[in-house]
């Protein structure tokens, strides 16, 4: 547990010194929204579910 919390604190410090680490946290949700928008707006909610499942476990497809 100590190692985990030390690693977490180190990562927080790294993010503070180099905010580029935050890029995936910001961009991945927005990209996901964009692609799910395509599917949902086209009435392909089945595709949205498939895509969401794929994101959770690509090997299961």
């Amino acid at each position, binding site marked *: 547990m100590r190692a985990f919390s030390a690693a977490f604190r180190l990562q927080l410090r790294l993010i503070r010194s180099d905010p580029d680490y935050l890029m995936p946290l910001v961009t991945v949700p927005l990209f996901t929204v964009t692609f799910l*928008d395509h599917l949902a*707006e086209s009435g*392909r909610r089945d595709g949205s579910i498939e895509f969401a499942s794929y994101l959770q476990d690509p090997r299961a497809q």
Partner: protein
Amino acid sequence: MTALATTVNVLHHAFRAGLADYREMFTWKSWAAGWMVRVIAQVSFFALLGERIGNEQTTYYLLIGNAILVAALTGVFSLNMTTAERWTGTLPLLVASPSSPVIVFSARGSYLAVDGALSALAALFIAGGIFGMDLPWPRVLAVVPLTAVVALAAFCFGTFLAGIVFRFRSINSLVVLTTQVTLMAACGINVPFSYYPDALEWFSRMLPVTNGLLAIRGVFDGADVATILGNAALEAAVAVGWMTIALASFNQLASRGRRDGSLDYGA
């Protein structure tokens, strides 16, 4: 020399410096065979996605949206001007000079608005031809100035963001990428506004691309001239608004950087 003549002189030289930078980055061959191939591939990717999940209408909707987005993405790159000046070590000299840095940055990066508009139009007409999209002649000519307005609005927005990055340099890449993905997600590029909550639509209307893209879609859909001009005027207003905010905020942000000594050399 009057103040106006001095400003025009600075604008002229900064624009020429920007063009010289651009000539170092691209030749006509590398622009056409490198950059344009990448842009057309990106637009075609979304058009193919539309073909796969929807119908012809969806394909063309995505094709137009993503082609025009290229103008905005390129325009927003103008915010990298401050980083470029920092890399070359000229940033402190610019801030110390009698001329306002925002005038230099905006003029030096303005080639990006021209490049963005040209890239977007080439992508629209080439990818449109590949996917068999109807380009109603001569109405389609109206797309040319409308795309230029979109690129200009994005460039003005990028100039405003340059002020933020000027002050908080560590978030440069984060700002570029977040802005680009936000424009892609929120400006009606991929789905119509009816799909969004009302609050998001209001937010999007204040961003570049949104209103101009509606005007361009109007051209393709055969909307009446008043609707197209109304949306184009809103896009122009967005451009003026962001440039006004940039002019008002840039010097204050630069002064703070000068006070705390953060305008150092290097990235």
